[in-house]
């Protein structure tokens, strides 16, 4: 009983501090203040406040789940939720105090005391492990001195700099404003409100554990739908604008944010639908499974037809602004499908994918531009240059692939990254300036003309991207289920054995690189035509990382995964401008989390799941 209690306490404290660290971190990098700019429900809650509340809520619910499972009493579960809520505010509260004028002395004192306290804690831990006294004193001294150096330096910095803000740029007024729930003037009151709100969120989170499953799921559906619609209010409004009267729209939205009544209505409706789904969804799924082969095929056919129809109609459904976003997403889907041939099918981690994108874009730019750098001055149309760009990218892919064919996986990744950087530097150099314009790039690229109409709008360009994506999808599915696909799979699994099976691995890898490059080239060419100009700044390592991330997040080698990955990773920052500053921060965190918790991706394929989970056992068995 005693053990279980101390374990409970530890779990609560760990989760609470984790949640607190998250809030502190998001605040310190400026996310909370930036998200505060976006209202989720008009005059009610902003995205920043939502982050502050939803974190203790989720952690409270998680803790309740974990504790409830081990048979803790309701009081300790719900008490745990409240404590987590309070702990969530602790780090941020401390920083608020450090940041204020009245309590600045707290910072000074903690910096002074920290070396002694931390060193003693470390020594105490060593003492518990029965370390000899001499070593103990030595470690205490060493720890105290090292930490002392850091805290002394920090104290010096803050002393000279004055405000925290002159070092940590995002610990500013806006941040204080958000975390105190608009009580910047009266800090104590602000901290109280913050703690109270957070404790309530934690409490509600832990309470949810006791709600029966069906209504709980309904509630979660309802809340997430409402909050998502609220957060993406601008987007939703743009979609509705195409289909609704202005007056109706104004009743639902105030500028870009959901009105309170509308939010409430949406919450009710989506909760009811969620309830129906939670109650009868399983039965519906069961019914589908029980359908005969014929009927099931028909149902699936209808689904596919509907999906294709939506894809074809999309630009009309969502309007111009969102079509533009759709084209961007489509370009990344295209690149994702292309890079997936190298990474997913053949297992070649290519980090220089931007090379192909740049080659395609510059080829199109130079060949069709009617500006001073254009070589042909309008004699070549977009449609004629697309195959040329494709071939050029294939050729570039080929040239860059040959040297890396013999390299081991991780060296290959770094070498291709090096190629990407080389191309970037060359594009901006004086050397190639007469050809491709250096930092000024190439301008005046005409839009594609189809049957006499100039495809100027994103709604029209969308179809070019769609066709390119479908062709690539077709090619990659066909190849995956072919002899070539099996060769790639074998190489991915064990290159030595693949060679021993008579596979010319160099040739197979080269094919993967070249085909993958071709797709990148087409994407680059379409991009150049869309934008109308090409600058070296558009072709940085970030493109490669973007594409890599969407493949990893969606699921390696999984085509639906790539589409979902692109929509989430590319669409989200485009639609939610507040996100775009933190895009790579989130990508990085996502890559790490995916690799640790779900390396097979959101929508995995079977074989990759096996591979990624293979882990130690296979390696040991192979015993080199």
């Amino acid at each position: 009983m005693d053990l279980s209690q101390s374990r409970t306490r530890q779990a609560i404290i760990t989760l609470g501090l984790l949640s607190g660290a998250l809030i502190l971190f998001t605040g310190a990098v400026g996310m909370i203040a930036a998200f505060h700019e976006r209202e989720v429900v008009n005059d009610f809650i902003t995205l920043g406040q939502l982050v502050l509340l939803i974190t203790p809520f989720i952690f409270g619910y998680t803790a309740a789940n974990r504790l409830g499972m081990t048979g803790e009493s309701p009081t300790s579960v719900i008490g745990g939720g409240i404590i987590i809520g309070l702990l969530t505010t602790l780090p941020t509260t401390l920083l608020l105090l450090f940041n204020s004028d009245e309590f600045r002395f707290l910072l000074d004192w903690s910096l002074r005391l920290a070396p002694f306290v931390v060193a003693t804690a470390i020594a105490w831990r060593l003492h518990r492990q029965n370390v000899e006294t001499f070593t103990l004193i030595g470690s205490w001294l060493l720890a105290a001195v090292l930490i002392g150096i850091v805290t002394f330096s920090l104290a010096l910095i803050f002393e000279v700099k004055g405000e925290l803000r002159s070092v940590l740029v995002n610990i500013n007024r806006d941040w204080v404003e958000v975390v105190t729930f608009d009580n910047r003037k009266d800090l104590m009151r602000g901290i109280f409100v913050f703690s109270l709100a957070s404790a309530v969120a934690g409490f509600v989170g832990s309470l949810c554990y006791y709600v029966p499953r069906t209504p709980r799921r309904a509630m979660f559906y309802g809340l997430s739908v409402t909050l998502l619609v609220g957060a993406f209010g601008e987007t939703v409004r743009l979609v509705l604008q195409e289909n609704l009267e202005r007056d109706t729209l104004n009743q639902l939205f105030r500028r870009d944010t959901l009105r309170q009544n509308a939010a409430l209505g949406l919450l009710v409706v989506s909760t009811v639908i969620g309830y129906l789904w939670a109650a009868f969804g399983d039965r519906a799924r069961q019914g589908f499974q029980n359908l005969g082969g014929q009927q099931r095929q028909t149902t699936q056919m209808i689904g596919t037809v509907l999906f294709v129809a939506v894809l074809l109609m999309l630009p009309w459904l969502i309007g111009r602004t969102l079509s533009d976003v759709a084209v961007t997403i489509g370009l990344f889907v295209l690149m994702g499908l292309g890079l997936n041939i190298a990474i997913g099918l053949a297992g070649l981690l290519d980090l220089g994918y931007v090379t192909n994108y740049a080659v395609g874009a510059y080829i199109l730019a130079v060949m069709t531009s009617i500006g001073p750098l254009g070589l042909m001055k309008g004699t070549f149309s977009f449609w004629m240059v697309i195959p040329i760009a494709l071939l050029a990218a294939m050729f570039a892919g080929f040239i860059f692939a040959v040297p890396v064919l013999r390299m081991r996986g991780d060296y290959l990744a770094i070498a291709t990254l090096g190629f990407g950087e080389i191309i970037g530097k060359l594009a901006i150099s004086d050397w190639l300036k007469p050809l491709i314009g250096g930092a000024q790039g190439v301008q005046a690229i005409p839009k594609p003309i189809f049957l006499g109409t100039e495809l100027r709008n994103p709604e029209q360009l969308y179809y070019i991207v769609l066709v390119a994506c479908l062709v690539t999808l077709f090619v990659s599915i066909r190849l995956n289920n072919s002899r070539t696909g099996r060769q790639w799979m074998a190489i991915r699994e064990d290159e030595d054995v693949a060679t021993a099976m008579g596979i010319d691995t160099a040739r197979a890898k080269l094919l993967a690189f070249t085909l993958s490059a071709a797709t990148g080239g087409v994407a680059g060419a379409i991009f150049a035509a869309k934008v109308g100009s090409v600058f070296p700044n558009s072709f940085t390592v970030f493109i490669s990382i973007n594409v890599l991330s969407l493949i990893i997040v969606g699921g390696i080698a999984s085509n639906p995964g790539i589409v979902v990955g692109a929509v989430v990773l590319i669409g989200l920052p485009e639609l939610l401008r507040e996100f775009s500053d933190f895009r790579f921060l989130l990508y990085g965190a996502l890559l790490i989390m995916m690799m640790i918790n779900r390396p097979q991706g959101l929508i995995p394929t079977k074989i990759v799941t096996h591979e990624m989970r293979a882990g130690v056992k296979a390696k040991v068995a192979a015993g080199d």
Partner: protein
Amino acid sequence: MLHMFKWKTDEFSWVDFTIDVLRILIVLAIVVGSWNTLSEGRISFAQWVNLFIAGLSQGSIYALIALGYTLVYGILLMINFAHGEVFMAGAFSTVFLAEALNRTGFLNQSPVLAILLMILFAGLVSMTVAILLERIAYRPLRGSPRLVPLITAIGASFFLQYTFRGLYGSGFKAYPQVKILQGALQIGSINIPTVQIFVFVSALVLMFGLYWLVERSRIGKAMRAVSENKEVARLMGIDIDWVILFTFGVGGFLAGSAGVINGMFRPQGVNFFMGFIPGIKAFTAAVLGGIGNIPGAMLGGLFLGVIEAIGPNLVLAGLGIPGANQLKDVIAFTMLVLVLIFRPQGILGERLSEKKA
């Protein structure tokens, strides 16, 4: 002897052929470029020596970062791609300390002490980042397929960059000037800036310290044991997790101190993206010297620094390429690719890398 001239029975391999052509082209470019430059005689001997010394001091910074790659690789056989960001963390954080020390006047009153404090502070900051990185991101992935930790490291790299951008802002911040490092040493017609001597000497001191740590101390012995064979080391009672953590810590400390030294050396200042390119270059240096090989990383760093300083002026300028110094990075990355193609075991090609590769 006759065996050496045996008739090759293998079929024509066009991969080999392409690589051979590449080899010949590169040698040709180097020869022609150097010949042109040297016969024109635009650059005097003293200028060459200056370039060489500047290259050495830049190279010693690469060497310090490269040690982190090599130490980690030696133990985990993993490329810690985020190591460049560990370097950035120390350099970027210490800018504030340097400003504070400068404002109080301490930096110019007793520069040695102030710089020492800065190096320690940066080292400790980077060390903390490296240790957290290992503990949170890499430890759960031990034993998974090789590309999994590499992808994680790439993620960590961008995560760290943008975390520091969020914390300290996106602008460049310059280290204050230190008076005693402003001058130059005059030897005949050769003029060596003091700051370059400072960089070189402090890097040497740090490297010597590391060498002592690895070769002489008890933890160093444990590190070598773990890198030889983890299982046996575990049976001998070595705490592997602690040794790995320590290795990351040491690598981080060196990277952080390199960050400060680099900051004093480069007037354009530091920002959140400063670690990316030096990170790749230091990796190049580590591979050049044979990854996993400590003296190799030091030599590889110096070598890369010198190549990077001399290469554009000697080869590219000789080939008539305008703005050759813009292409410094291109030289370095080309170097990276060439080493990986032609000599992945590095110049000092250690047994270890051959065996475990």
